[in-house]
């Protein structure tokens, strides 16, 4: 489509070369860590050169599988992420529909409350939030790990935007048949919002899975650690570790599931980051 002159073609090539070089720098740390995770610790003690030369081993990975704690942490992360995702979808859909499609007294101020919540960063409230959950004696429970993240204004805004774009005529027909608003929402509007649910769901899941600060202060017992907190707890005594290969295998083991998730749901994740649900 573009009209090309010889000079822009050379320019295009130079810019592409620069971006490819930058991309190589970007993936180098990951390739390096993945490669070395298959090498024996004794070899890595001497040299980290020779990425593609034998000997190779799977021992670093079997060592992880034999340490039982990691699986417990992964299970905790899964419970927290799925719980947060499900509850966020329910809350954000109901609220988004309420703001986008219905009218009720006090709608504007309540919507403004949602926007205000958007402006309050986690760090500003984490100390009092921790005090509140401590008073209720809820720390080291799944309830404490899940609930503070349900106040997720971004999800509400995303769903509000989505529902506003759906044609109201479908609902008007159902209203004439005397269907209640809740029935209309559940049986007519909700099925239409599956793409937005997928976008918000995957995004919330990733956020919950990667969450660090709140789980760090709330889950203080090792058996309640999530994977991020558990992995971090193993990094603190970095100097006297079981070996470089073991650490690298850990990074791969923890990073791989989300990278696979990303490969499958890239479109949804990017759409959520851009603030627009996929249609």
């Amino acid at each position, binding site marked *: 489509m573009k009209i090309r002159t010889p000079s822009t073609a050379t320019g295009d090539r130079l810019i592409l070369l620069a971006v490819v070089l930058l991309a190589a720098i970007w993936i180098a740390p990951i390739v390096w860590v993945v490669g070395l995770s298959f090498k024996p610790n004794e070899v890595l003690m001497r040299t980290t050169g020779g990425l593609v030369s034998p000997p190779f081993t799977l021992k670093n990975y079997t060592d992880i599988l034999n340490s039982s704690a990691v699986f417990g942490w992964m299970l905790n992360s899964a419970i927290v992420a799925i719980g947060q995702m499900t509850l966020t979808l329910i809350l954000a859909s*109901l609220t988004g529909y309420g703001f986008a499609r219905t009218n009720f007294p006090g709608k504007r101020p309540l919507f403004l409350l949602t926007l205000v919540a958007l402006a309050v960063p986690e760090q500003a409230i984490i100390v009092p939030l921790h005090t509140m959950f401590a008073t209720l004696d809820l720390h080291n429970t799944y309830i404490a790990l899940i609930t503070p993240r349900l106040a997720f204004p971004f999800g509400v805004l995303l769903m509000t935007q989505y529902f506003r774009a759906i044609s109201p005529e479908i609902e008007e027909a159902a209203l004439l048949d005397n269907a209640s608003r809740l029935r209309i929402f559940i049986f007519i509007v909700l099925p239409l919002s599956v793409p937005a649910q997928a976008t918000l769901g995957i995004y919330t899941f990733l956020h919950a899975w990667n969450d660090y600060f709140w789980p760090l202060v709330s889950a203080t017992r090792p058996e309640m650690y999530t994977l991020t907190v558990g992995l971090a707890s193993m990094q603190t005594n970095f100097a006297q570790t079981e070996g470089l290969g073991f650490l690298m295998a850990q990074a791969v083991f923890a990073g791989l599931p989300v990278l696979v998730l990303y490969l499958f749901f890239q479109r949804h994740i990017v759409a959520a980051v851009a603030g627009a649900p996929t249609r």
Partner: protein
Amino acid sequence: MSGAILPAPSQRTATTGSGIGMSAWANMFFVLPYIIVVVALVIAPLFLGIWLSFQDYDMLGGWAGGVAFENYTNLFSDRIFLGTIRNTLLFVVMTTPAFVVVGLFLAITLNSHLRRHAVLRSVFFASSVLSVTVVTLVWRLVYLPNQGLLASVTNLLGLPGIDPVTSETWALPGVAVVTVWWIIGLPMTLFLAALQQIPKEIYEAAALDRASRWATLTSITLPSIRRTIVVVTLLEVILQFQLFGQALLITGGGPDNRSRPMVQFIYETGFRDLQVGFAAAASQVLFALMLVAAIVQFWVGRSRDER
């Protein structure tokens, strides 16, 4: 921006029958569960935090009454806390321009339907899905003196080795590099979304006029996405003020507090030393600084728009 997403005020009243826009108390139940969550888990802690910042409250010693501004005066005579303000501001200054410039460069270069561009976009975005602990684990290995990837590269090029984990000069830049590597996908994606809104016809017209690449960039592309540039800058400033995990897990804030951010100070005083009132006061200072930064930027962005 917020004006566009505000719901329209109710047009019809309850007396006009069962129209779709009918205002009814019952409809409030759609938003009520979420409102309760926001009030209980955002608004209440926000005010509790402000109150706590004026109290002598210790998680072990308990509540020992109000202390007026003592927590704040203590904070501003605490050399470590003042150092964390300096580090946080420095970090914002280091990372925000990098996010905007590199993000913009990637978005402009990779804005097409070409397969190779899609692959490259995936590469730059992929690291953002990793958790902070995976990212710091990878980079602590990269930064290892002698055996790390960075040391291997500097050796190969015959450069003097740098150890970002223990060097006073390189600790904070080292954390900044990791952060840009980690989440460059966010500004890139936001810029790409803005670029796709520019009508193709403008570029076709420019090509017919044989406008140079530079002229097209400066007189079409950049002016068209000026608002997005302001928004992304604002977003990055706010996000980078919140630096925590990377610093805690890579340098631990050292050496000599050279890379300790404000959030790490809040974490250490509040959750390690259990001085709840003191930590709550530090949180308010952080929040206030972020608000000031946001207001200044919003104001600068607006006055530029008016010209």
